[in-house]
């Protein structure tokens, strides 16, 4: 049962990271002139599983600037999530980053840790604003991790969390039933020079509700 639930959860994550299926592919975001000055930076994504062993997660990150381009996704610092997570190319095409990963092992993180590192190119003097949403955080039996949170930070100031108030919530109803997953997220503004700056950022909290497909659909 535990294994089945985990596989189902993984299937959801993989299919979430696989392309969605709109009727028509969306338009591509306008590019940035090659002549503009660019710099490269890293942004770390963290999850606090609140003392529960984290087996799977899905995170959605949105930025507000077309001048920031994702140029690579690296895995996390815990061995269970060291492999680079999958991303959804269709979402990326709409300027969203959806990351997902799963580990079926027994040595799972239960303390705050970096789950992924984003490598980005920033054009001109853009001060990108990021919003991170923890869509799914689950244990190895497929149940949601209560109170799990996600946050982002500049890797160059690795010891300094940019968003201390980050909270996220993913609630999942029993397998096989339709459910509404609620996700609270914070947006993290990281600005300034260098990576995403030492000036700190600002956070704003908001809540979204979305309707998701049945778990059974992904089996």
């Amino acid at each position, binding site marked *: 049962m535990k294994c089945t639930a985990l596989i189902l959860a993984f299937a959801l994550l993989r299919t979430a990271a696989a392309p969605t299926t709109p009727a028509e592919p969306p338009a591509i975001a306008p590019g940035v002139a090659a002549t503009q000055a660019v710099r490269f930076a890293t942004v770390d994504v963290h999850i606090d599983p609140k003392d529960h062993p984290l087996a799977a997660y899905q995170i959605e990150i949105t930025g507000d600037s077309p001048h920031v381009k994702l*140029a*690579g*996704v690296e895995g996390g610092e815990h061995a269970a999530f060291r492999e680079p997570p999958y991303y959804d190319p269709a979402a990326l095409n709409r300027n969203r980053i959806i990351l997902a990963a799963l580990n079926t092992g027994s040595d799972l993180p239960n303390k705050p840790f970096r789950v992924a590192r984003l490598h980005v190119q920033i054009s001109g003097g853009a001060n990108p604003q990021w919003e991170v949403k923890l869509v799914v955080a689950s244990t190895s039996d497929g149940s949601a991790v209560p109170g799990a949170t996600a946050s982002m930070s500049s890797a160059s100031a690795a010891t300094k969390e940019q968003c201390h108030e980050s909270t996220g919530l993913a609630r999942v109803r029993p397998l096989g039933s339709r459910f509404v997953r609620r996700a609270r997220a914070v947006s993290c503004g990281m600005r300034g020079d260098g990576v995403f700056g030492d000036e700190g950022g600002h956070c704003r909290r908001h809540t979204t509700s979305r309707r998701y497909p049945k778990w059974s659909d992904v089996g």
Partner: protein
Amino acid sequence: MADSAPVPAEELWVIENPQNKAPMQAARADAAELPGQGQLVARVAEQLVPVPLKHTDVKASITGYIATVDVSQQYHNPYSEKIEAIYVFPLPSNAAVNEFVMTIGDRKIRGIIREREEARQIYENAKRQGFVASLLTQERPNVFTQHVANIEPGKRIDVNVKYFHTLEYADGAYEFSFPMVVGPRFNPPGTTDGVGAAGRGDRGASGQKTEVQFLKENERSGHDIDLVVDIDAGVNVDEVKSVNHRVKMTRPQEGRAHVALADDDKIPNKDFVLRYKVAGKTVKSALMAQRDSKSDGGYFTLMLFPPESLENLPRKPLEIVFTLDVSGSMNGRPIEQSKAAVRYALKNMRPDDTFNVIRFAQNAQQMAPRAVPANEQTIPAALQYIEQTQAGGGTMMIEGIRQSLQVTPDADRLRFVAFLTDGYIGNEPEILREIHNLRGPSRIFSFGVGQAPNRYLLDHMARMGQGCAAYLSLNDEADDVMAKYFARISHPALTDLSIDWGGMQVRDVYPAKLPDLFVGRPIVVTGRYRGNPDNAIVHVRGKVGGEVREMPLAVNVSDAANAHAGIAPVWARMKIADLGDRATYENNPELAGMIKQTALHYGLMSAFTAFVAVDSSQRTAGEHGTTVMTPVPVPDGVRYDTTVPQ
């Protein structure tokens, strides 16, 4: 198992790292020993060979008729200064490349799919600023270029590529192939966007946008390859045969086979081709599916086999044109293999058939002004004409195409063009466009000759020509390959195919125009479905002569045994291929955008997209260093002196 080949036991390899490490000069296009001093080199018969690509590791697993392949390329810097490594390499032309990971030490960075130009700009920016970065671009559906920037001295960077593809099935056997080298290609005068050949260190000598540098025959790069294939057929696997390589094989259990390259056959200079049969009739018209959790449906592929009743029907009289590539790249064993195949064919024609022989290199010549009856006078004359043929010169394939297709059709005969070539040309779009425009009532059956033919060209020539492609390795018996060809054309094809999907709500089916079904050659159809159409009955209809035939097929998309995570990318890749074929002959500016959007949406390589990966966590010191092309050997059986411009 491939025939036993001589082992180069007498080679002496001396690895050295000179003490004198002077700074490198800027890149010199004419430098024969790039990038300069301080190099860890392989010395073979006094030839010094740069080796920025050290090793390739290929792991393939086959489930049903879909292969999942992981390719790992290990780049390293044996020099005293930073380098950018460039490697032009082949993959199967139907490979749906959807993963790209760069590994630096124990850190892995997943590459991002981008519009091609956008990816290139990101790569160039990162390279200029000293970040380790990699870029994968597609030059042809089966030719790719890997760039790796800012490899520091002594450091190693791995690039992993993952793809899915459907297997070929022909004459009772599945065929898995992995190409290892891009052959030296000829480009007609005036061409600049082709794939050109140059000698090692002669960067830019070909004048083509994409260039492959070749090692001389007495040189080795030190680049070797490991390859393993795991087959999980679900039913008994029989007659597993490696056509070109010596292999080690184990059978862990019934229905499974593990095949690995032998230790003494690891030079990447020929296609790896693995053929195997499965027991019983379980392979017949198999459907594989992948549900899409975000829509009410999913993706499927259907391998559609011809009805067995075709084999009981006689054929009409034929007009067969044998068109032989006699250019320089065919010199030696390849042209002899072509001759052997045509000899067999000539001797097996019927008296009511007609034929002609056309050969092309720098220009095209034909044996007779028009097709002649196959009789006791013409066949010996043709055999003599074939024997006198010598290979040499350029490959003006377009001339061969025109002479083969620009004819007045014979209303009493079916017209087949058997095209025997290695396909070493760089102007594929022009050739395919000409076939589309001139084909008329002819069907083209392409034969890829040699150890590393241009399979993209040959497959698509046949596809455009409403025929089939076959491959004639130097290790194949030419008679066997031709006998299968004759078996195929000795029975009518099922034409004008259409599929009534019954209870399945199906859309976006590719290929959009279904090809004809020939004996022994199934086709793969892919599409998207809605709902949960279990136990649906699908009806395939076609015509034999003027008579309509129908085949019912039961399909079950929920059958877990037929589920596969690679179906969606395979579908998207087939859609891109379909659009790409249209783009060769259709002046529709929207096609490029449709290909690009499909590729971006599904995260796939295409002519208009590329993968880029940047490690922005740390800069390397100094300038980005010298660009080093990775030279490759000419394919086994191909002569350097007749193919690589001197």
